[in-house]
């Protein structure tokens, strides 16, 4: 018997504000008289969703904002009622839909633990038994008798997380709670979730925008899009499909509103920059491993003495992946005023699939100064064939060319040479 069974679940919301009392009364009157009533348009947050989850499955739900993830969780947790269709849940559900719902600022940490835990359905005896563990996990022993209103927001979240994850329930619903506290505590939460999932064999539903986390935790992932489950299957496949889709959206978005950082002294202007692979037309979608050329058109206003050009690649969240410099190429030259074209060849580009942008800057010597800086230029995505996206090589930003070799050091005499596997080591 499945732990959760959802069939033809639909949830509609009316768009716009709630009607005034007057409109409600007028509409009721019209209905009584059989006149047509002006209805506000409906919005389908969930549209005919069906699936079932077996006990012990760990299911991730991903999708962009507004895809219906949280609405679905609310239906499962019985907070909201479906417009049509049904939800069957077998077992006690603990919703971690938002940790710390119902913390009372005037109460001490201890009082809030009792309050919050009993709201989540724990009995007094259960809480008594678990109090020490909760306090210990939240690292709050020192502050547990201080009112929560004097806590920092991080402390509140830590305590709330500790309470929420201490519930014994067959089904755990988790909505974006792993991103709490500082890095050290996040690590701890992560481990706690992992132990909840792995060792206690609970059914878990995890909603997150941290796709890597979902991929790691879950045994199955559902991708939601516009109120429907558009993909349901192995974490790797579903997550990769979502990555590809997101990359395209990011590129399209940043191409529409290029708002990079620009700094210039006016000596040189960037007229055009684009990438292409093989053919000469600009391309925003490059294939992994192909030869890439960057074409830059500059307008030099006053001649550049001994310039150095930098071309860099960064992710859309400004992690600088790589930078290449013109180095000595123009070191002893003077570039006169006028329009010039520069091209950079990047043979067999090893960038892993993802969304990136270009960064370009110009320095001159005597005196050393930066005369031009641009980033978030020419957003582009690197793609691969769909089946190879889940290639383990693509974990990271780019592939390092490497040579591996094997040797078996003869440290312990004859014994080790008879067991080559035991002494296997690799050299990069």
């Amino acid at each position, binding site marked *: 018997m499945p732990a959760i069974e959802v069939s033809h679940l639909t949830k509609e919301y009316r768009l716009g504000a709630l009607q005034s009392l007057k409109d409600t009364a007028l509409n009721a009157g019209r209905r009584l008289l059989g006149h047509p009533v002006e209805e506000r348009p409906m919005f389908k947050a969930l549209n005919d969703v069906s699936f079932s989850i077996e006990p012990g499955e760990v299911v991730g739900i991903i999708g962009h904002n507004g895809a219906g993830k949280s609405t679905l969780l609310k239906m499962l947790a019985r*907070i*909201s009622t479906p417009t049509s269709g049904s939800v069957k849940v077998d077992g006690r559900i603990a919703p971690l839909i938002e940790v710390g719902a*119902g913390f009372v600022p*005037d109460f001490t940490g201890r009082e809030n633990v*009792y*309050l919050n835990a*009993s*709201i*989540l*359905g724990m009995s007094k005896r259960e809480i008594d038994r678990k109090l020490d563990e909760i306090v210990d996990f939240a690292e709050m022993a020192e502050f547990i008798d201080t009112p929560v209103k004097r806590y920092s927001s991080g402390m509140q979240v830590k305590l709330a997380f500790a309470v929420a994850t201490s519930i014994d329930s067959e089904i755990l619903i988790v909505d974006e709670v792993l991103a709490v506290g500082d890095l050290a505590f996040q690590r701890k939460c992560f481990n706690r979730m992992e132990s909840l999932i792995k060792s206690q064999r609970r059914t878990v539903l995890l909603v997150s925008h941290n796709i890597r986390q979902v991929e790691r935790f879950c045994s199955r992932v559902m991708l939601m899009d516009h109120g429907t489950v558009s993909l349901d299957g192995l974490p790797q496949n579903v997550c990769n499909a979502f990555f590809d889709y997101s990359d395209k959206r990011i590129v399209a978005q940043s191409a529409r509103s290029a708002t990079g950082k620009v700094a210039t002294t006016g000596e040189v202007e960037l007229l055009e920059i684009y990438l292409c692979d093989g053919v000469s037309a600009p391309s925003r979608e490059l294939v992994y491993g192909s030869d890439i050329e960057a074409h830059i058109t500059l307008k030099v206003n006053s001649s550049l003495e001994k310039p150095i050009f930098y071309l860099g690649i960064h992710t859309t969240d400004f992690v600088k992946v790589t930078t290449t410099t013109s180095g000595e190429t123009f070191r002893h030259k003077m570039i006169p005023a006028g329009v010039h074209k520069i091209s950079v060849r990047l043979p067999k580009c090893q960038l892993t699939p993802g969304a990136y942008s270009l960064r370009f800057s110009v320095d001159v010597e005597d005196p050393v100064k930066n005369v031009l800086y641009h980033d978030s230029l020419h957003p582009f995505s690197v793609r691969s064939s769909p089946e190879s996206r889940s290639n383990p090589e693509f974990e990271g930003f780019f592939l390092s060319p490497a040579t591996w070799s094997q040797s078996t050091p003869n440290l312990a005499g004859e014994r080790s040479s008879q067991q080559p596997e035991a002494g296997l080591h690799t050299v990069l």
Partner: protein
Amino acid sequence: MIRVAQNLYDYRELVFTLAWKNIAVRYKQAFLGIAWAVIKPVMLMLIFTVVKSFVGIDSGSVPYPVLVFAALMPWIFFQESASDGVNSVVSNTALIKKIYFPREIFPITAVGTKLIELGINFVILATLMAWYGMVPTAHILWVPLIILYTVLAALTISFVGAAINVYYRDMGQALPVLLSLMMYLSPVIYPLQLVKDKLLVQQAAGEWSGLLYMLYTLNPLAGIIDAFQNVVLRGLPPDWSALLPGALTVAVLLPLSYAFFKRAESYFADVI
């Protein structure tokens, strides 16, 4: 009804915890603490006593201050239970949107919380009675039943009011006005005996008198306050003829009110 009781039993710990929260939140950072619970009835008692000295209200054999305090106790309990009950769902928006448990927990907890404040007022009542040298009789054992009945009357308003309040906040605004009108229609400032004398003995409204009296006692508070005064102060059993019409009102309206609440409940999280 059995399901309600079952739910209530399953969630009893939550009800107690939430009631404790309500009390603690209200008085935590107040210097006078729970003493505030008695200040309102005591102040009103003093004001009414002063007013009474101008107007002249026949309080029968019982000293007026005790009589009015014994009326204010069930009245204030009812009034505050009803208004807290009506606001209980809206004021717990954060919980409604995050966690499921039977939503009637909120109005019930709000009413339950007021029971504690009512209990404290009994101390004042006992002091007043001792001051005037009044000794209660065995009829005082009726008190728990009268309070239970008051709880049911308050829930009748709370359920329907709380549900409407989620959709239209007008309810929260209108209720205090309605309740303060209701106070004058209940025998708080004056004893029920006066109304009875006027209508039933003197037949002040001619042939309509009997009907008017019946209408008056349809208000459950008429019977409640009078019964409370009878069993505590006068040493008499409750006046059933005054209780019955009101009890009928509650018996009919409470199930309707609860049904309305349960129907509206599933959409609370969407519209609140």
